[in-house]
Structures are given as C-alpha cells and as structure tokens.
C-alpha cells in the first residue's frame, strides 16, 4: 500500500540532509556529524565546494537587489534550506522594509528551524512543501497570506533544480509555477553543471557520487538543458552565465576559480500571460 498523501515522511537525523550540508559548506554549525561527514567526503573530490555555495549566495544577493530595483517586493524562495545569514528576507527587508518573503523547503528540520528564525517577522514565512508538487506550494495558506499572485513575484530556484531528477519532470514543475505568476515576474535560478568546474570530470563525478550515496542525487545538466527552464521567460542581461559574470559588482577575475562552476540567470515573464 502506498503511503497516503497526508501521512508525513518520517525524519531521520542519521540521514544526511542537503540543506544542512549546504550550511556546513557555508561555515555554519546548523548540522550534524552525518552531514559533515558527507560534506567532507564531497570536499575530498571538490575542495572548492564551499566557494561554489558562496558564489550562489552572492549571486542570489545581487539578484534580489536587482528584483527590488525592478520594483518587486514579493519573493518566493523554493529550496531555501537552513537559514544562516544573508537570507532573502534580510537582503530585501533591509532595502525595502515590508518586502514579503515565503521560503519553501521539504526538509522538516529546515522548516522548523526556519520557523524559529522567522518568528516575529510578519512579512516572512516558511511552507513545508516540495518543488515537485507546485500546487501544494501555490495553494498553501501561508503563501496566500503573504503573496499576491496578481502582482509580480521573484521566484528563486537557487541551487535546487539540480536535486530534481528528470523522471520527476522538473520542467513541468517550473512551467506550472511560471503559469501561476503575474506578468513581469522574475525567475532567479542557479544550477550545477560539469561546465566551468576547474577540475577533471572524474573528480567532480566523485562528488556527484557522494550525493548519490546519500539518496539525494545531484543532477548535473548542460547549459542548454538549464536554459530550457527559462521557457516562457525573456532572459535578463547578461543571460545564462557563470555566477560571477552575472551583473558583477567587483571584478570577476578576483573570484575563486570554483565560483565559475554551473550557471546562473534571471528571466522575466513577458507581458502576455501564458
């Protein structure tokens, strides 16, 4: 018998969590030994992994500020993970107080921790849901309380789509979310790729294997495949590029070589609704 939809997945802190591994890469201590062990293993193959995460955070920061400059004050961050520092609500609410932020994650620990962090912040909340089920996200009362889908939204899919396998139809999920967004909304996206990693492929494959071992496969996609997620969006300059090249504020050449792994981009939904 299949598990009914309303029965929650069990949690097991003996199983590594990608959210907490990410936190470890960023120097945080919101993690357990199982997470650190997995992270250390991956770093044996790719010592620069923390730099990739840092570049993701830096890109997200620039993209959120770009969205604010565009007049967008609603943010939907799916796959938000463990809030550490430099979170979307911190960036946005510092620039534009009252900006509304909804975080989404399917990791129960990440969600309860986010609830603790966001306690007292009326303009930010977290939803326990899965990117693979966009309707669960869109229909959640917490989202509907904070976000007006008739107005533009910045949808953040930062470092998450590479955890969704093709069999789960990530393109379909992204399209479903796009169709729910008002014209002028933005898609902020980063994605892992073998392209740009300053290592021989077999080394990066070793890191990929670590994720496979913890039953959270990391799906490396080509630039072309990643570009497909932007279907129905007009790319914002400079398009889909390595993270440091996206509207840099400092010289990209000063960046760590690992920061150029994978791709980042921002798209804008066109005036006509889908």
């Amino acid at each position, binding site marked *: 018998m299949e598990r009914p939809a*309303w029965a929650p997945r069990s949690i097991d802190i003996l199983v590594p969590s990608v959210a907490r591994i990410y936190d470890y890469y960023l120097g945080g201590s919101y993690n357990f030994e199982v997470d650190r062990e997995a992270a250390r293993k991956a770093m044996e193959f790719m010592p620069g992994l923390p730099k990739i995460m840092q570049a993701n955070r830096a890109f997200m920061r620039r993209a959120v500020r770009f969205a604010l400059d565009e007049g967008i004050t609603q943010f939907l961050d799916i796959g938000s993970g463990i809030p550490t520092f*430099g979170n979307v609500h911190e960036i946005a609410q510092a620039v534009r107080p009252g900006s509304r932020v909804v975080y989404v994650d399917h990791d129960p620990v990440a969600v309860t921790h986010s609830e603790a962090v966001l306690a007292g912040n009326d303009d930010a909340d977290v939803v326990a849901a899965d990117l693979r089920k966009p309707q669960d996200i869109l229909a959640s009362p917490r989202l509907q309380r904070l976000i007006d889908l008739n107005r533009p939204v910045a949808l953040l899919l930062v470092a998450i789509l590479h955890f969704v396998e093709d069999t789960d139809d990530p393109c379909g999920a992204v399209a479903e979310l796009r169709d729910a967004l008002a014209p002028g909304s933005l898609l902020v996206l980063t994605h892992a790729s073998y392209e740009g990693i300053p290592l021989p492929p077999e080394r990066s494959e070793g890191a990929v294997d670590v994720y496979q071992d913890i039953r959270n496969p990391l799906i490396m996609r080509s630039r072309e495949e990643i570009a497909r997620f932007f279907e129905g969006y007009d790319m914002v300059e400079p398009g889909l590029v390595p993270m440091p090249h996206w509207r840099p504020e400092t010289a990209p050449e000063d960046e760590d070589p690992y920061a150029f792994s994978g791709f980042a981009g921002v798209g804008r939904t066109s005036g006509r609704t889908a």
Partner: protein
Amino acid sequence: MIAEPDGPEGRLRRLTTIWSRAVFPVTSTSLTRPEFEEQLLPLARRLSGALRARVFDAGEGEAVGAALVGAHCTAPDALSRSLDCVDAYLVLYCGEGGDQEDLRARSARLQHAMAAGFARALRERTLAEQEAIAQAALRAQGVVAQALHASEARFRAVFEGAAIGIGIADLEGNVLQINGALLRMFGGSEQTLRIRNVRDWTHAEDAPQVWRLYEELVRGEREHYHVEKAFYRPDGTVLWTNLTVSLLRDPDGNPQYQLALMEDTTERRLLNLRLRYEATHDALTGLPNRTLFFERLEKVLSAGDGRRFGLCYLDLDGFKTINDSLGHAAGDRLLVEVADRLQACATAPGEMVARLGGDEFVALTTGTDTQREVDELASRILNALVAPIRIDGRELTVRGSIGVVEGPVGERSAAEVLRSADITMYRAKSAGGNRFELADPEADARTITRHGLTTALPAALDRGEFFIEYQPLVRLGDGSVRGAEALVRWLHPQHGVLGPDRFIPLAEHTGLIVPLGRWVMEQSVRQAREWRERYGDGTEGPLRINVNLSPCQLTHPGLVQETVDILERTGVAPDALCLEVTESALIGADDDLLKPLRRLAEMGVDIALDDFGTGYSNLANLRRLPVSVLKLDRSFTQGMQQFPADPVDLKIVEGIVALAHSLDLAVTVEGVETGAQAEQLRTLGCDTAQGWYYARPGPPDRLHELALADATG
C-alpha cells in the same frame, strides 16, 4: 569619509584593506569584498584606539575577535590571517610616534585577546547553532511523530470503523489482526478466529481456483485476487463474502503480509436467490413461469446428439366464462387446482410443468421415448381434468385443449416450438376441445400463412395489391348481358393471385373489410359509369353492377352515407347498383340491421339475397326483407349439369322461382356451366344467370366484348 592618504585615517584604511584582502577569501560571507572591508573598518579602528589608549584595555581585542565571528569569519584561517595582519601592520600603520616596544607588547596582548574573543564567540555561536538545529530537529520529529500518530489514529479508526471486514495475516496464514466488522460477520470471539490458520478456512463450496490463487499470493507471484467465497461461521452457519486478498510487501519489495478485505454478501445472496425464484415462478400457482420454461426449453433444444423432446400446450376450454360468471377469485382458485393436478401428472425425471400465463399451461418431457411419453402425458392431463373441481360449493367441470409437439432437438427454436404447439392447441379447440392434437407441419404452415396474410392485409390495400374481376350476369330470356358481379382479387407479392375465400374472412375478422369494401364499391361503380358512357342506357335499362356486402359492412354505421357519396361522386343512378347480402347475414336480422338496407332500397339500389337456400331461411321472413333479387346457390344448379336433371332439384327450383315471382322478386342463378343447364333454368322461369358457360370472371374489357357481341348479335 575622505582620508588623507598619509594621515591617520588613510593609514587605518590601508590597514583595513590589507586585512580584508587577507581574510575575504576564507570567509563565507555573501558580501562583496568592498562591503566586507566596510565591516572590518570599525574593528581596525577599535584596535588602533586600544593600541594608543592612555590606559590599555585588552578587552578591546576580545571584542574584535568576537566581531569577526559575527561577520561570519568562522574559518580558523580567518583568525590566523587576522592575527598575522594585526601583528605585521597594526603598529606599523597605527603606532606612529609611540614607544615601539610598548606598542609591540600591546599589539601582542591585543592579538592574544582577539584569539580568546574569537574562540569564545565561535564556541558560543557553535553551541547556539547546534542547540538551535537540535531543537529544530526535535520539533520536526515532534511534528512528524504527531502527524504519524494522527495518521495512525486515522488508520485505526478506518480499520475499526470500516463496514467491510479487514484481516491481516502473515504468509504462513497466522492471523495477526482482525477488525470489528470481520468479527461481527463471523460471530464468536476474536480468539476463536485468531487461532484458526487462514489455510483452514475452507468451505465445501470453494471454487477450485480459490486456493490456487491463495498459494500464488503467499508465494509472492500474485499481488491480489478477488473471489466469491463462503466460510463456516463458528456456529456452523454459512457466511458468503466478496473477498479481496492483497499481498503487502516490505519497503524492499519482499512479501510480508496478506491483507483480506471481505464484504458480507450472505443476505444479498439469499435475496438474489429469492428474486431469482420470484422471477422464474408464477406467483399464483407456484409453477415455473414462462421465463424459466423458456430457459429450460432452450437448454433442452440445444442439447443435441439425437435427443428428442415432447411438449404439451394446454389451454382450458371456456375458462373466460368461468372467470366472467364466478369472478376472478374463483378463476384463480380453479387455476391453482389445475396447476396442482398438472404438477401431479409430470413427476418423472425430465418432466416439467409451467404456467405461461392466463389459463395456458405447458408440460415438457425429455425422456428416452418421448413419442410415446408425450401422448401419455397429454392423456394423463386430460384425465386429470375429468374430475370436477369444487369451488364455492359448485362442481365445475373443466376441460382443456392440448397441442402436442414432439420431435428431435436442435431443429427448431423454443419460440418456434411453442408457436407450433399454440397453433395445434387451437386446432384441438376448433375441433371441439377436450382433446389433444399432434402438431402437423402442413397445418402449421397454413395457419402461419393465414397469419401472414392477415398482417399483410392493411399494407396491401395501401399498396394497391387488390384488383377487381367482373363476371357477367346474363338474361336467360335472350342471352343479353345485363350487368356483372364485381369480385375482388389480391395480387399477393409471394402467393400470386388470391381469391376472396382466402382473405375476405381475414378482412372480416380484422375489420379491414370496411375500407376494402368501400374501395371495391367505388371501383365497381366507377366501372359501371364507364360502361354506361360507352353503351348508353339502352332499351333494357343500364348495365348493372353487383357488389358483395359482408356482414361486417352491413353493421357499419357509415354504409348508407358512403354508398350515397360514391354514387353521387361518380354520377351513377342508384338503380345501376345491386348489393348482394348473404342469406346467413340476415338470419334473425332485426329492424335496426335492416334499416340501412331499406333506405338503400328506397333510393333505388337493388338488394340481392346471396347464397339463397344454404341457410335455414325463414321463408315467411322473406316478405319483410327489402330485397328484390334472390340469388340461388350453386348447389341447386349442380344437379342440372347432367342429363336428365335431378327431378327433385327441378321441383325445388321451380317452387322457389314461383315463390319469388309471387313476392315480386327476380331470381338469379349461379354456377351455370353448360348450355343444357342454362336452357333448363330458362324453362323453369329464372330471370338471370352467371357462370362459366357465359364467362369466367375477368377484366372489365371482357365485358365490353360480351356486351358488344350481345348488341350486335
């Protein structure tokens, strides 16, 4: 703040830039380096202040170390690089003009304090974060546990509250859990059910595949199966269920448990049996009904391999009269008694009695010698009816007519067999009843043809399949043609030309005779007008047309008006029309029946009494009838075909002619076939004649020729 490059502020800036360049690569901040440098600037200022303070305070170093952690410089390298930077540049850029040795000592102490502050802050932060994440994990587990608990509670509620019985057993057949519904279905205690292995739950009526499916399931070769299965309840009664058994596998896909869902269908099954009984049995007599009988007959007829069957189709004689005179309740009791007696007649294996409806019963035999058996069965039935039936103190004698069909199976359908039996039964009835007749294919065919003609009649009229032939009426005195009798024919698409004897009785029976008769009269009168237009009235009066009126037409209320309409429409005088009415139709006729004929006669239409002498005519009545012509039946003239003619016939005809003439009636004879006959009849005083001697019935043109010959001859 704009700083003089070489002023104290500028030097502080340069220290900060060097510091941020050293530390930035090992931080995990998402700030840009210039932004990060802005965060370090106040820290550098504090260090600079502490270095040159009047009273030295190492606590400033601790604060700076802690602030590094606050700026997310948590990597160990961030501390060592910071200390390297302070050691090398703090005194250099911020210690201008002071005692270098003293400054270097202060710098060293500040570095020690920074390290301590960093360590303390990092420890605090790590502990806080570990605490927070542990709390979050705990809460998440709580949430999940709560949800699991709720889900389990819901499952349990579903399990316990379900209307269907649910049981879980392991693959060895040990019962692990059963719900209340299942317990209620079986009755007894949970313990008595639990101790019985699933493999022991057999029942005599288990379908052969039930246990094969079970074995396949527990071996993991089958995911589920669905069967209708009976169980013995602990009290020995039977429990019928719709049973679905599913295989439950563990997360790795290995078979683990079997789950049985069962629905109690015992009541429904009983109800179905009862409904089936009610649907196949007659409520009044309890005999099998038409449905069951047909099922049975169809089965018998499809058995094949040289078997034979015999069937008796019984219809009570005069049952309607009993029903009408004694009431339906009495009729019903009579039927019940008849049913009981019939039941007793057919007790051998392969024999069956059923009530088809009303007072129609059938008995079927499928023994080894049905030819003999069915005769005996029919005789037994008739004998069973001999003894009077006592109802409400009356002795009622009931008789029946039986149609018997016997033959090999596989040749005819049940419906065909029953039709043949029905036809044969009617034959027995028309033969007087209280008998049985054996089916005869030819008799069946005739009846079937008759039936076919009856149903084809209305369409035949619409399609113009009828036509009229005319047989001349000749005046015996001079042999001149005086008119013709219209005789209707049916050009049937399959059977060819049919004479009136084949279809007029059918038309009478169905009432189609009225429109058909009207059509014949209209056509004939029109023909009469044509003749009149062609030959004029002549000295002997107009050519007359004789049209037959059936008894049914006679009582039709529109007869007079329709006749008048036809005459007026065609512009033909009434005296050109003669309506022939059979003697039998007028036997016992009262004034009401005669009234239309009188009116027609008053108008000038001749009325002829057809087939005169065949019925028991009341001669005294003759004067009362509005007739002007007697048509002598052909039976009187047949005796005159030989020579010498039968003297008795001669006397009779002579007497009738005298009687007719004395009543002022003309006499027409039919069936004149020889010249001698014609001469004889002329001598006897008959007025007109028709017959093959003159002409057979034919198309209207033939009459032209005769009339023409008559006119010229």
